[in-house]
Each structure stands twice: as C-alpha cells, then as structure tokens.
C-alpha cells in the first residue's frame, strides 16, 4: 500500500492522564476512502484517541500523521481538510444555526459560501430552522447540525464520534445513508466511532476494536467476521431424535443450548451445510436454519477474551 494513500497513520500513540493509562502504544492506519469503524466499550480510549487526532489533547508519546504529514507540525494545514464531531456537538446556543455556521465558516480555512451553508442545513433537514437559536434545538437536531458543521469545509477526512447518539431510528438511517454517500459518491474518508455496533457493520469496510487503551484487532470488517464462529439456530420437527443422532458426533459439542424444537449451535461457516445434510439424511425435517453473525457478538466475544 502506497503511504500516500494513508489518511491517518497512528504510531505508538500513548496518553496518560496522571496515573491513568488511557491509550497504550496504539498503532493503526486509515486508508483513503475507508469508512473506518472505531469500536470499543466505554472507557476504551476511543474519545481520547479522537481528541488526539484532532489536536484537542496532546499525546504523552507516539506520532499522528494525517495526509502523510505530522499533526504537531502541520496542524492548521491538516485541520483545514478535516471535519469532525467530538462526542456531543455543542454550539453557541445564544446564536442561530446560521450564525454559528457563518462563524465557523470564517475559520474553516476554506471559502465557504452562504449557499454551501444552506445546502448543508437542508441536507440535515434544518433549513427551516436556520434562523432559530440553537438553544431551542432538540438533542437530535443538534446532532444533525453537528454532522452538517463537520462537512462545512468539504473535508477529505470526516471524524464522527458517536454521530447517531440521540437520533430516532429514521434519523439513524439517514445518517448511515449519508455516511455511505459521502464515502461512495464523494470519496471521503470517514473515521467513525460508535457504540451501536450494528451501525459499524452496516457502513464500515475496515475497523479496529479498542479495549482499555489497547488495540484488540484491526482489519477488514468482512475478513474479521468471516473466520469466526457463528451462532446458528436450527429448527427441527423431531428434537428428541436429533439429540439422539447427534450424540456420538462432532456436532454434539457444538450445541450451546436447546429450547423446544430449536437447537443453538456454535459453528464455523463451512460446517453448516454438512450439519444440515446430516440431519436431513436421518429423515428429520429442518424447518429453519439461521446463521447469526453479528459484529455485536464478535465484539463482545473479543473484548471478553481481552479481559
């Protein structure tokens, strides 16, 4: 991979808050065009890392390169091409959304026209409330406004820290669609931190799981999920017979639980057809076979292993 395609390069990044180690020797790379999922339980060090990437806090050690340049030495140049929401988006509540955007536009490092501002407000459905004071906005409206402000300077890199917090399901879907559109149509690189893990699964192509300041795993979302054990629900018409025929086979140890006529297996992808065939060949009808492979399961298992 050409280093010029690396949008974010993190190397040996460490942050101590007095005696607390928040981020420990973190290493990862975000490539151009990535929707990079940044996952981790509360207190994992996600926000601390994001704040270091945006120069809100200073690393204890390690380096951050963005667009191939060191953040510390090229901060202004880099930030003129970065848009961000950090945790909950806050604005000057005593000013309107329009005024807030006009102020931020003036210091965004790029020429931002009034049309661009109105387009963004329309994009997040706030054009009609553009002249209302932000303090009158609901949390969801502020969240959408935050996303619009992150795009104000038409940045190459968009850092979104929990962007769907406080949004209703429809709003969450709109944000997901927006992230996909920004990535596919406008070729922007998205660094997305979220607690809603299914969201990462739906939009991210690469991801990193962080726990207690340490990287647990990093890679393509598909690859990371493919090789792992799935939770498979098999629904049959004769559960007792199934139990008997499986008893002396390799499958028996894979049964996690049995509830009525439903068997819950922990299986690898390639074992599913063989199990199905074995049951059917023994004259038992399989009425449903549902493999569940969620990032949530993966995330929980991998963070549990890390403990």
């Amino acid at each position, binding site marked *: 991979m050409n280093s010029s395609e690396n949008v974010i390069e993190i190397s040996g990044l460490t942050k101590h808050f007095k005696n607390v180690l928040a981020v420990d020797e973190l290493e990862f790379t975000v490539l151009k065009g990535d929707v990079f999922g940044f996952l981790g339980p509360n207190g994992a060090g996600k926000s601390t890392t994001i*704040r270091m990437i*945006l*120069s*809100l*806090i*200073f690393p204890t050690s390690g380096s951050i390169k963005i667009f191939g340049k060191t953040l510390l030495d090229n*901060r*202004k*140049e*880099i*930030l*003129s091409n*970065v848009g*961000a929401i*950090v*945790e*909950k*988006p*806050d*604005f*000057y*509540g*005593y*000013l309107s959304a329009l005024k807030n955007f006009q*102020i*931020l536009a*003036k*210091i*965004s*490092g790029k020429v931002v026209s009034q049309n661009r501002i109105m387009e963004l407000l329309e994009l997040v459905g706030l054009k009609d409330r553009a002249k209302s004071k932000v303090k009158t906005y609901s949390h969801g409206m502020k969240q959408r406004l935050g996303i619009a*402000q992150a795009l104000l300077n038409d940045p190459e890199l968009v850092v979104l820290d929990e962007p769907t917090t406080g949004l209703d399901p429809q709003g969450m879907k709109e944000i997901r669609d927006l992230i996909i559109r920004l990535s596919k149509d406008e070729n922007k690189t998205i660094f997305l931190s979220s607690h809603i893990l299914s969201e990462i699964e739906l939009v991210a192509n690469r991801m990193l799981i962080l726990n207690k300041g340490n990287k647990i795993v990093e890679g393509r979302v598909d690859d990371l999920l493919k090789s792992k054990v799935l939770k498979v629900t098999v629904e049959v018409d004769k559960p007792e017979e199934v139990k008997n025929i499986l008893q002396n086979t390799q499958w028996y140890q894979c049964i996690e639980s049995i509830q009525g006529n439903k068997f819950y297996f922990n299986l690898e992808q390639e074992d599913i057809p063989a199990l199905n065939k074995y049951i059917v060949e023994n004259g038992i009808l399989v009425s449903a076979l549902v493999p569940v492979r969620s990032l949530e399961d993966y995330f929980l298992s991998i963070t549990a292993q890390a403990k």
Partner: protein
Amino acid sequence: MIVTLVKIELFKIFKKWRTYIGFIAIGILVPLLHLAMYLEGQKSLDFITRGLRDSFILVGNLLNGYWISYIILNALTIHIPFLVALVAGDLLAGEATAGTYRVLITRPVSRMQVVTSKFIAGTIYTSSLVLWLAIMSLVIGLIVFGTGELLVMSPDAIIIFEKGDILWRFILAYGFAALSMSVVCSLAILFSSLVENAIGPIVSTMAVIIIFIILSAFDVQILRDIRPYLFTNYILQWREFFYNPLNLEKIIKATLILSGHILIFFTATSIIFKRKDILS
C-alpha cells in the same frame, strides 16, 4: 485571521446578555448619581469647601459636569472591575462550559490566535465599558450641569483647574482607567484558562482585587514593602492627571507596570492554553 477571530469574539461578546449588565448598571447608576448631585450636590460641595470659604471667596460654577464626573470616577473605579470580570472570566471558561472549545479548536486556527483574539476582544469590551462611563458621567454631566472650574483636593494641596485645562486631563484619566481595567480583564482571562466554569474566574479575580486592596490599605512596614508589586496600587493613579504639576515619572512608571502585568498575564495564559488538554 486574527482580525477575523477578534471580530468573531466581539460578535459573541456583544450577543450575550451578561455583556450588557455592566452597561445597564452604569446607565442606571450614573444618572441616579447625577440626580442626587442635582438635588444635593451644592450641599456636598459646600461641605467639602467649608474650610476654604473661611479664607477664600469661591466664585464661578464649581458644581459642574467636570466635578461630578471626577467624583463619579473616584466612586466607580473600584466597582467596575466586577463588571469587567463578569465578561472576561467567561471568555475561555465559557467555551469549556458550552462545549464549544471542540468546534473552535478543531478548526485551523492556532491556540495562540484564540488566546490573542480573546485578549484583544476583552480589552475592547473593557475600554468600551470605560468609554460608556465617560459618556454617561462626563458628557451627560456637562449637558446637565454645564462646564466650570474643577476643584481637586490633592494630598498636599487644593487645586482649581481652569475650564480650558480640564478636558485633556479627563481624556488621559479615562485612558489610564481603561488600561488599569484591562489588567483586571487579563487577570480574569488568565483564571478563565484554568477552569471550565466562568464563576470561578469571576470570583477569583474579585478575591484577588479585594485582597490586594486590603493589603494596600494597611499602613505597616511589611505591607508597605510589597505594595509596589500589587497592581491594585496603580489602579487609582488616574488621579495623577488632576495634580499640578503632572508627575510624569510616576505616571509613566504606573503605565509600564500595568502594561507589564497585562503582558505577564497574557504570556501565562498563552502558555497554559497552548498546553491544555481540551477535555470538556
């Protein structure tokens, strides 16, 4: 960029309700003092000059706009720091409280530029507050009470300035008052850079001023020795412009000391803010 940032800071300052508390307070208080002087001023003047009248014949309009403005300036310079701290203490801490540091610092502006623009905007606010005091007390005073000679009691003499010899003294005195209030402003911004809530810097600034004034008031040797290092010792030296002859050396020294304080507070704030982790 710095001009843009200063304009933005001024826009934010003057869009906040708390900014106008000082202007409203002066706008209410000074006319009340004018009214009191209009009704009772002559009695006060007679009381002050009762000793003089035994030896001299005082003629002309001594109860005039200049004298009223001089009295008001004496009375209010102690209280204006609170009005200054009310706004200046909020300049950095207010961003932390509102969470807007995050949108501000993630823009391509340096932290030094942010601090500098806040200092400049704070100084402009402070100067506009002093200018408002000048307009309310001097301009309105001259309109209501007219002009005349200014009678000033200096520590070792009674001075009466002619009409034509007064206005420039007031202009310089208000300029000096703006400088000394800017020290208060910069101290409040320094405190504001340390915390994430504006109440702390406001209270701390006032506490420092009150403590320094108390220390200045006690006439004991040890306190006399530290007095030159307390900036509050110089806040009332605008009075020097109403002494005759002018003690230029004293005025320049006070000006340099106050300017030095601003520079020190600005430098300290810049260093703190440049190293600060934004966690709000």
